[in-house]
């Protein structure tokens, strides 16, 4: 994962690029577009939740102003937290779009996509939108989480509507066998707790995101506490994985599931970077299912933008995952 400033990001990309992002209530949803505009954008696809309750008109105006500066107009893709097929259908339409040139350099701003949107995007890149097979992922690191709240009070979302598999990751389970759920909670332990309650896995494996260096160092203890809480009434174990490092997350998940013979269910709710990595991994292990539960509420003051962008390509993640899976198969 490379770490860049906004200026570096623009310099790295050499020329104009096409962007897919998600418009949300967060300022962070425009950080990448701002960094690329003006002059750096050729095309801008923007996912928009149809059933969003929060009024994001202001954010939409801001997005359109950025697009105007760049000389492009935004093409919105419909999504729905109640009907995940809506986004899949929008991507089917996109794949059939003859104007989607093979030569375009595509950037995926994954910062404010929901975990489900991001996973559907990764599946579509693998299955139908060939131009995204080497999608350049960008994530704007949060300047601060949950405002001035103390570490124990920081939160991102609460409650769930339902638990469902993510489009593109239904798994291929053997009914009747034991189920192992790999949970990667973020700052929404209550949401993950509800998911575990709904799924009732035979074994719960909880990943603890370990911050690297000083960035968000305070989160280490919080994440460990969340994991312990989830395991209070379940058989299971924990494992550590590096936060904000897709390749490290893949290594950790492969290691922890190395000897598993049961059905596997992945539930990523930590960073979008880890979620993207698990999406790529699960496409290579189609017997594993990924599940998701739309949140009941979100913290509208969850995160502030920063001038720090993490980048990685789908190709790089895929190559790493393939090599690790190969190594496991050959016993290395």
């Amino acid at each position: 994962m490379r770490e860049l400033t906004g200026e570096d990001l623009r310099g790295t990309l050499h020329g104009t690029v096409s962007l897919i992002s998600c418009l949300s209530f967060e300022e962070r949803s425009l950080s990448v577009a701002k960094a690329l505009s003006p002059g750096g954008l050729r095309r801008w696809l923007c996912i928009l939740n149809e059933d969003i309750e929060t009024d994001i008109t202001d954010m939409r105006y801001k997005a359109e102003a950025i697009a105007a500066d760049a000389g492009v107009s935004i093409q919105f893709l419909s999504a729905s937290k109640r009907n995940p097929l809506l986004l899949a259908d929008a991507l089917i339409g996109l794949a059939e779009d003859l104007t989607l040139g093979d030569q375009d350099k595509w950037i995926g701003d994954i910062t404010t996509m929901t975990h489900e949107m991001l996973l559907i995007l990764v599946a579509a890149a693998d299955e139908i939108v060939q131009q995204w097979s080497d999608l350049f992922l960008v994530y704007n690191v949060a300047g601060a989480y949950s405002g001035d709240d103390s570490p124990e009070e920081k939160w991102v979302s609460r409650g769930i509507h339902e638990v469902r598999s993510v489009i593109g990751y239904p798994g291929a389970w053997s009914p009747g066998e034991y189920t192992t759920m790999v949970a990667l909670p973020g700052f929404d332990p209550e949401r993950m707790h509800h998911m575990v309650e709904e799924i009732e896995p035979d074994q719960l494996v909880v990943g603890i995101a370990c911050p690297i260096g000083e960035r968000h160092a305070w989160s280490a203890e919080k994440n460990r506490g969340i994991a312990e809480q989830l395991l209070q009434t379940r058989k299971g174990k924990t494992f550590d994985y590096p936060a904000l490092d897709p390749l490290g997350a893949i290594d950790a998940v492969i290691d922890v599931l190395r000897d598993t013979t049961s059905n596997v269910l992945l539930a990523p709710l930590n960073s979008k970077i880890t979620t993207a990595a698990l999406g790529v991994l699960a496409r290579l292990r189609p017997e594993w299912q990924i599940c998701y539960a739309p949140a009941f509420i979100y913290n509208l003051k969850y995160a502030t933008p920063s001038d720090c962008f993490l980048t990685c390509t789908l190709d790089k993640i895929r190559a790493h995952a393939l090599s690790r899976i190969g190594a496991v198969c050959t016993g290395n």
Partner: protein
Amino acid sequence: MIDNPFAVFTPEGLTADRVVAIFSTEMPGLGNIESAGHAFVIGTRGSGKSILFRYLEPDCQRIVTKKALRELPFLSLYVSFRETQAQISELARFDDKHGEVFFNEHLLVLAIGAQVVLRLLRNNDIEADELTPLAREQHDELAALLGSDVADVSANVGQALKVMAARLQTAYRSAIQYVRKHGFKSDTLTYTGELYGFDDLLLPLIDFLRAALQMPDQSPILLLLDDADSLTETQTRILNSWVARRLSSRCSLKIAAQITAYKTMVTVYNTRIEAPHDYQEINLSDATGRASEKAYRSRIAGIVQRRLNTVGIVKAAERYFPEDHRQSLEIEREEKRLVAEWDAGRGRGYRARDDAYRYARPNYIAKLGGDRKSRSTYSYSGFDQLVHISSGVTRFFLEAAADMYSQSVALAPRGNKKVDSIQPRVQNEVVREHANRQMIVDLKDLERDVERLKGDPQQAVQLSNLIKGLGSMFESALIDRTAAERKLFSFALSEEPTREIDEVLRLGVRYGYLFQGVIGRKEGAGRAPLYILSRRLAPLFNLDPMGFSGYKFLSNDKVEQLMNDPEGARLSLRRRRGRTDENQMSIDFLDGGSDA
């Protein structure tokens, strides 16, 4: 490390010995479940549905009856729909399409079949049993149906069941591969594989299991279908269509679901299934009547004793969870005073003990002080109070008891970690903390952060307002010595609810703030839903959680005011009460939480 006897684990993973040790047989309708005929076991999450099913499984029943498997009075086959991947998003591509019902049924019967076969093998020592000629014949027919063209040479039950499970799993995975292709396809693809259903696969499989295990024809086979609320609407309609059939001679369906989450009672033929014509209904969460309350108390007492036995403590539940001594003496004194008043001709009820029961505890709470803070010195302790506070949900009782036990272990002197009883102070602290957690962590934050919310904020705030409004209304009645009915915990609507009200009430029931029962309509014709405030919230409003309570009829206008105009509701309450207790009506949770 001492095992916490009240710790709650999911029953599916418990050993048969443990289940038999902790399960209380004082369960409503247990006899009906054990006999032939379809039944729905409904209850809130944590009401004991899954442990009931686990208890009925053959490995547990062999311990209970001390009989061999083939001698058991019934054979139960357990399935959890949580494990059948019901919510595969791609399946929505088939909604309202030709073949939707057939394909969903195909997936259901394969998943159910594989689960029952593997679970039987896992939990019972049947591997080495010899396969009878009849079982062999049925096995071969099933194998042929599942596409096997190679003669199976399985010599014993273990091998035959393993092979059968593998075939079912292969067919299931193959079907899922077909589903998988629809994630990024707008149209459904042609399906060229086999399609299995209830009649041609599941029933023959059950017949085969009866033959393989040599169960007599007169012993019912019970298909225990747990977590049926996890099914999609289409799958639910398929299941209902099976219920509509008379199948008792071959198998009976026992379906467990959460009360409000079961999607529909309609079949795929658009007919309704109804009790008692099509099935019996057993409600594990019905604590709305005196008889069911008594049965629930008795069940919890049994569970406490059984769990204490597992850690070597032999003690009645009432003695293990004693009430605050000073408080119980004061309440007893008030009861005597009320009886004396009644004897002197100044009573209000038909019998002296009615007055003592209805008014002693409310009078004691009212006497603790004029404002909310003083009344919050009331101690929520004693087994009976804990039973009522758990609101008919076994898990609520056990979770609180587990926390009380853990705290008591932490408080015990070093080296003496056996907890012979739970101090009233510890009981009170845990009960109040649980009430705070439920209300403050969830609802209060929703209200306070209304501007920060995305999702369904309005409904959450409306629910928060409604719960607080109801709590204040009930508290107001409790301390009003002139009120005819002072123990209020429930309300019914005097008219059909608006859609807005209905959605908020459903949300309240779903999240456990309200429970649902039924009562006769005010005008005398038909039944109306009754909404009961969770007694777990009693400490927040200084309510008396004990006993069967009265209820109020509320109009839609009143409920809408409570939901949407909390200030107006508060002023209206204040006007009625004549400003006697403003603190009580100011719904301040920071002051009202704990006396600790």
